């Protein structure tokens, strides 16, 4: 039973991180209809900026996280302007290839600046908390709390504020949104900024229990794609739910099946699900 609860905790941790990354990806997909492969690069840059702030400038954990979020948000805006905006009328293949070009650039750039070595992000939360016979590293609890708090905050922002509603409106109907006077450029830039900030925060939360290296975003982004296919491309609740499904599948799979193959579990799940339901698990009909 103890082991079971431990896996639940691991599942929630992974699910929280994957959910945050998938949320950013799904927001951008909803607006631009582009699978942004560079999102993995945003995630990785976020981890490196936080690492740099903490190690080279000896900033605190939280200010480093804010720094990472702001930096990657700006990076997202710049990418939207320079790469995706000029391609908004191109065939679907071209922005996809461009996003891969951007990812390759970010990875090589990070390697040139910070090196190819595996590094670890220091965290002030190293203690282990005990609750009724269950032990949990503080950082894991922090990840769960922060990730789900951020998801709720994003939900409130999108549903309760006018600015948030413009994003939803544009995701639902681009032409309709511009007819009622929504500035498509502004919304696209804002979406990229939010998506980048979410990725950076997720990376900063996860880095202390994982490693930081230039290719670190690739596996995470691929899993995030699996999640948004499971949850329906562009669906926000789908991204959260999909994140949890993959998180739990992975933590239980690693324990009950094999640690060696835990990274394959998400992909095999996708292959099976898409074989049975080509439109994704929760996707709406049509579109």
């Amino acid at each position, binding site marked *: 039973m103890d082991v079971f609860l431990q896996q639940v905790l691991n599942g929630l941790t992974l699910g929280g991180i994957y959910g945050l990354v998938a949320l950013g990806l799904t927001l951008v997909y909803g607006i631009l209809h*582009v699978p942004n492969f560079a999102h993995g690069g945003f995630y990785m840059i976020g981890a490196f900026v936080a690492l740099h702030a903490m190690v080279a400038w000896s900033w605190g954990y939280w200010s480093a996280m804010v720094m990472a979020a702001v930096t990657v948000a700006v990076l997202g805006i710049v990418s939207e302007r320079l790469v995706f905006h000029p*391609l908004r009328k191109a065939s679907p293949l071209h922005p996809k*290839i461009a996003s891969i*070009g951007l990812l390759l650039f970010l990875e*090589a750039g990070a*390697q040139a600046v910070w090196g190819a070595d595996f590094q670890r992000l220091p965290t002030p939360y190293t203690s282990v908390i005990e609750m009724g016979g269950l032990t949990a590293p503080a950082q894991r609890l922090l990840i769960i709390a922060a990730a789900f708090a951020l998801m709720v905050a994003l939900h409130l922002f999108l549903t309760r504020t006018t600015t948030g509603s413009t994003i939803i409106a544009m995701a639902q109907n681009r032409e309709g949104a511009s007819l009622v006077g929504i500035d498509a450029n502004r919304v696209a830039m804002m979406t990229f900024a939010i998506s980048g900030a979410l990725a950076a925060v997720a990376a900063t939360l996860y880095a202390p229990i994982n490693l930081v290296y230039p290719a670190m975003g690739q596996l995470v982004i*691929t899993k995030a794609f699996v999640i948004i296919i499971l949850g329906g491309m562009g669906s926000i609740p789908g991204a959260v739910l999909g994140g949890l499904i993959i998180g739990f599948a992975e933590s239980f799979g690693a324990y009950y099946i094999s640690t060696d193959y835990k990274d394959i579990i998400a992909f095999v799940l996708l292959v099976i699900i898409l074989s049975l339901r080509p439109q994704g698990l929760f996707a709406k009909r049509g579109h």
Partner: protein
Amino acid sequence: MSGLFDSKLAWGALLLLAIAFPWIAGNDYFLTVMSTAYIFAIATLGLNLITGYTGQLNLAHAGFMAVGAYTVGILTVDHGWTFWASLLMSGVVCVALGYVIGIISLRLKGHYFSIFTLCVGYIMFLVIEKWEGLTRGTVGIMGIPEPEAIGALTFDTPLSLYYFVLCFLVLLVWVKRRIVKSLLGRTFIAIRNSDELAEALGINLMRNKVLAFMLSVFYAGIAGGLYAGFVRFIGPDMAAVHHTFDMMIFAMVGGMGTVLGPLLGAIGMPWITQYLQFLQEFRFIVFGPILVALVIFMPYGVVGSFMAWRTRRATKEGKAHAAD
């Protein structure tokens, strides 16, 4: 799309240049670089069949190439097959795998195919790395035999191996040109341009997409098999998705949707990295922005843009004549 770039004269000149290359190069190192470039050119030709002609971005292409290489490695080293028989099998295995994956993934609309193949690429990489009983894991397979001699023809020097690889390249370029110029090739282009329109014209989308995919990964499998026989050592890194990105850049620079473009791209680009040694590790700092710029400013690549320009000029002249 005919004209200078696609004439028999141009292809003949290229072939002569390739045959004369060993005398131009003058040393074995350049021969080896060029042979490797030819092998990747074969794989790139395949990638272009599915991506450039049918419009489906396959991100598992390097994975298929690795599957081809491991087929040769495992059959020759562990099962004592001849190189030639296992090379044939590397094509067969990839086509069979391509059929299964194609049936599942090509039903998917739009971007799902790319994402699906990205996942397939990871599965291939992780399986090759973790299934030590079959693939020897991270150690890789060493001591793959060189291709057996055919009569008096032996393949044990860089020069003979260069011509060996060149023969396959020429053959596969010829086959691809035949495919592209046939009804099948036009069907692929019709699907790329608008699958709804193609379907309305009575084209069986699924059948043709799967066929294009199988042909495409056949090229990857053969390229992988050749690579195993040429380098004689293979490791799981071959399946890394970065190699697919490399091939995509080769195809993009030359021009997707032409036969010559990806060929020139794949042959030319390794030389750029050869000469810009300092770029080796960081090549994507330069290639990444080049790729983005190409997509924005020259979506049909160098050869494709030139061909489009010629077509435009020809139409203008045609109109001018008509006005007379």
